[in-house]
């Protein structure tokens, strides 16, 4: 898991919102994951400071929260770019050339899988099957899905967001 050096910039509103969401789950069995998912929704990632708030509010020890945060691929401890780029590497996409698409995105953005560009604009991840196999290969930029793409289309797609 990549831990970011970017300073934490959480706001008071975000903190109030997090404490409110934690309170909603009070007394519920197995509520840690839903709480962490809410926290990631609010902050975009789960830095130490956010995990500490969860620990203080729920009484769940930090090492357990850290353990859960590092176990699941969706929890991130480094911030995401303004536009999250995700290349599907599910089987259907892979056999239709998603590997080459990923290489092209890396080349175009100059970052590796799991990293964020220095201007904070794009972050890159790979995912395992978004279930749009009919459109393979698939890439997602800032929530927009692009299907049946070839490596030579990558630059133009990314340009729309630059």
């Amino acid at each position: 898991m990549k831990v970011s050096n970017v300073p934490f910039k959480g706001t008071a509103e975000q903190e109030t919102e997090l404490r409110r969401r934690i309170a909603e789950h009070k007394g519920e069995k197995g509520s840690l994951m839903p709480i962490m998912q809410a926290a990631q929704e609010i902050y975009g990632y789960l830095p130490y400071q956010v995990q500490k708030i969860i620990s203080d509010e729920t009484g769940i020890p930090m090492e357990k929260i850290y353990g859960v945060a590092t176990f699941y691929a969706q929890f991130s401890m480094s911030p995401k770019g303004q536009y999250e780029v995700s290349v599907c590497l599910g089987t259907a996409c892979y056999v239709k050339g998603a590997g080459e698409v990923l290489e092209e995105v890396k080349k175009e953005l100059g970052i590796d899988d799991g990293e964020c560009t220095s201007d904070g604009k794009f972050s890159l991840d790979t995912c395992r099957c978004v279930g749009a196999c009919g459109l393979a290969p698939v890439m997602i930029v800032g929530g927009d899905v692009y299907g049946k793409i070839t490596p030579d289309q990558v630059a133009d797609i990314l340009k729309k967001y630059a």
Partner: protein
Amino acid sequence: MKSLEELKVIRDRMQSQIGPRCGVGETAPEHVEGDGPEKFIMVCGGTGCHSGHSQEVMDRFEKLIKVAGKEKEYKVIQTGCQGLCAKGPIVVIHPGAVFYEEVNPDKAEVIFREHVEGGNVASKYLLREENADGTNDEDFKFYNRQTRIALRNCGIIDPENIDEYIGRGGYEALGRSLTQMSPDDVIQVVLDSGLRGRGGAGFPTGKKWKFACGNRGQVQKYVCCNADEGDPGAFMDRSILEGDPHSVLEAMAIAGYAIGADQGYIYVRAEYPIAVDRLRIAIRQAREYGLLGKNLFGTDFNFDIDLRLGAGAFVCGEETALMTSIEGNRGEPHTRPPFPAVKGLFQSPTVLNNVETYANIPEIIVKGVDWFRSMGTEGSTGTKVFALGGKVNNTGLVEVPMGTTLREVIEEIGGGVPKGKKFKAAQTGGPSGGCIPEKYYDIPIDYETLKSIGCMMGSGGMIVMDEDNCMVDIAKFFLEFTVSESCGKCTPCRIGTRRMLEILTRITEGKGEMEDLNKLEELAKYIQANSLCGLGQTAPNPVLSTLRFFRDEYVAHIQDKKCPAGVCKALCTYEIDPEKCKGCTLCARNCPADAITGSVKEPHHIDPEKCIKCGACMDNCRFGAVVFK
């Protein structure tokens, strides 16, 4: 909901709207007068079509109908997956079941003018298949050859409207179970039906329920639904949740009644936002109707369901890991016994079934054991949904009776391999399964037959591969997947799969030795025998099955240092075809390694020693003279 009669009132009210949209192989019911619209524009809102901007198509149709003042006559409905994702966004107009393909807002205008206003079929945009004129379901092999049970409502109802589900006979099975059957009767029906787990392993569902049924009413029990569909290339469960969420809720309540549980959990992938939304809406509507909550159908049976979202861990599809994750822990599996039926979620007896398994249950209760057993084979009853993908013309979702041959699924329903390429293998069971080579093209697809050739049914992903796919590379792809998804708890899986991947990587780079093949087999057997959970125990399967059926490809990589399919980069070289090269010098000017020589208007040549295989020459060549093999 207090009684079956109350349910029937809603069903009767919906008849005039549901009747005109009948599914594949169904006969249309008699016309019933109603006060709502009786013509329907069904816009597919499954993930595939949604990604293809079907929402804009839907908005356009709604606007057009409003402008034309046809609201009383026509209704636009967003459905779940229609199945034929390759041709999406799909629009179906009822009555008549006229299918339109690849619809965008502009095409929607034309379809509206010609079909809705003009009363003629907009033939230009009809769904095209060979020898099909597109006017009826029966004309399509893709739909015609299917038998839809689990997908019975997908594409036919609005998944966000509980009345439509009830209109198609929904919640009848729950009502009958609660008011006319004992819990043991329910278990007996499921046992007798021969229904086996659709998540892959094929364990008899009735047996699972029977194990968990002791001490009803005395101990806390749970019913869980495994919707953590993690196999890459599989989207059966997602489509059911998106297209017919109530069928799963209803079945879970039936399971709760059968074993004596009052709480259910659905563990669903967070990667499926549309499915999550529709489940939330369905649960809310079911609660409002009193179909979840207290005293269902006027009995003393209580049942409610909560959602739990996964967070991107493949291992959580394994039952013990899934329950550990619902409890809010790292999703690590543990040894069985104790089995979940004895000690499952929160240490209580738990029944856990897959989405597709649940979707079958209400139909079995209503239509009976004999009806269900009339489909499929002796050992594998009913149907199976497959997500057909990869190198096949009709990518999408298909449901066929067990025992259908692979050839029928791929050639007839799937429309064969595109571009006239040759079928090489079909991969089933994802990272736990294997590749079925062409010589088994005519085997019946059922649990036992697939197992006998070292494959498995799996959850239903079926990826077709052609001559351009390298089987060593595919084996490596699946190993990369298991290595990154291994939870790390047990050594054989954590370290064993990594060692196997290293060997495979070596082979694809041309550094393999023949001895490596024995090493792979030895390691594979050890990992299968000693891993803690299903993930590790089945992780070597893709390697073993490709070694068994495509050994010559491994040998070609090792001895001839060649990748016959031209996939493994390290073993391939760029070459210039002197026949096609015009000597324009563009490749040489773009080569970053100065590896290309040749004079103007003369065929050029690539020096393999200098070439860094970046592919710039191929990208720039205007005459298709650069080949990679």
